[in-house]
């Protein structure tokens, strides 16, 4: 896995807004966003961005449905770790490549893959953003690291960008356990993330 290090100073792609937000945050040693290459699809880079105090969730959701946002908008309260999103994205790209996607686009497929069930509308309801949400996790898939549409997203989201590594501060553990039906005995043999990943990876043979 290659992490593409990009500090706000180095990147030519950051908008003024992003630099402003970044400089307002305490530097924790992490990048705000997370860009990773997938071993199975070396031609693609996956970028995750996290926002809190989002005021325009309704507009964002409408834009995403209209296809004006080329990214997946996820409700961060059902996410345990960025790895969860990475697993869903990898699977979406795989299914796209073999022509077996269950939904219409790569980004909707990412949201669908996060769900433990095969019900599409349920997946969007639980894992996509809804109008009342104040936080959003954005996933972008781009063919080349330098030609991503991160600045476009940054200009569209009216909220505060925080480090993707702080995702767990927004997780609703009780809700996650309920959605994925994680029993207390299962937690004896592994973490909540393990349980979630297993459900996601195996749901097509349930």
């Amino acid at each position, binding site marked *: 896995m290659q992490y593409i290090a990009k500090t706000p100073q180095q990147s030519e792609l950051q908008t003024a807004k992003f630099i402003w937000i970044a400089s307002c945050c305490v530097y924790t040693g992490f990048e705000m966003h997370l860009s990773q290459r997938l071993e199975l699809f070396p031609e693609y880079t996956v970028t995750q961005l996290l926002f809190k105090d989002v005021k325009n969730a309704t507009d964002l959701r409408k834009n995403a449905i209209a296809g004006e946002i080329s990214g997946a908008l996820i409700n961060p309260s059902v996410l345990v770790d960025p790895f969860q999103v*990475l697993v869903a994205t990898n699977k979406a790209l795989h299914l796209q490549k073999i022509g077996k996607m269950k939904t219409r686009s790569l980004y909707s497929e990412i949201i669908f893959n996060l769900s433990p069930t095969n019900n599409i509308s349920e997946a969007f309801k639980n894992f996509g953003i809804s109008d009342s949400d104040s936080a959003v996790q954005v996933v972008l898939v781009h063919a080349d690291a330098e030609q991503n549409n991160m600045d476009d997203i940054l200009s569209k989201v009216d909220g505060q960008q925080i480090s993707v590594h702080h995702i767990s501060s927004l997780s609703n553990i009780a809700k996650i356990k309920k959605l994925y039906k994680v*029993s207390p*005995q*299962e937690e004896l*043999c592994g973490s909540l993330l393990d349980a979630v990943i*297993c459900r996601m990876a195996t749901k097509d043979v349930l």
Partner: protein
Amino acid sequence: MAVEKTNNHVLHFLRSAELLKQGAEARVYRGEFLGKPTVVKERFPKLYRHPTLDEKLTHRRTVQEVRSILRCRKAGISVPVVYFVDYTSHCIFLEDIVGSVTVRDYINSAHTSEAKNLEVVARKIGEILAKMHDEDLVHGDLTTSNMLMKRGPGCGEADLLLIDFGLSYISALPEDKGVDLYVLEKAFLSTHPNTEALFETLLKSYSASSKKSQTVIKKLDEVRLRGRKRSMVG
């Protein structure tokens, strides 16, 4: 078909991974996947079988293995996490248990002074198998090589993992569970000579932990007399 397979991105990835083992059914690789140490089990095409039959059997076994892993985890039995499954190339991407040793290697490398530790491990195995059989899951290929131990202090619940559910199936029959234990007994005593007492410890722990152990042990005694295959009468 062959051309299509080599174009597969998963198989392309496996070419750069380290081949760990090759068996009759599958090849096992080690590599990094989504930034995590990962083991990939690839059920390769068997050219000696009719392609349609081969595809069907391989697919079914891959599905079966994945299902059994999930069933185990739900019951609180430690098994490697499934990261990703490709049903076109029949590859399962699993968590790599870094720093683990097989129970086989552990027993073989143990010194006589460590007999107490071996007993703890045997009891632990008995408990885990009891839990698995109580979930009506039959492993189908129990050997000490298919059990991993995480090296660490103590021997807690999570420190012993079962692997290779390729031959596993769901059955509530005491007969199937008895055969499962019989297969383990045969494998155990032949890989680890003079360990009858140790295996006895394992069975005692199994009996103490399982709610349905009585009928299973009774079946095990029957199976010992006649062998693994049930007599074909009628």
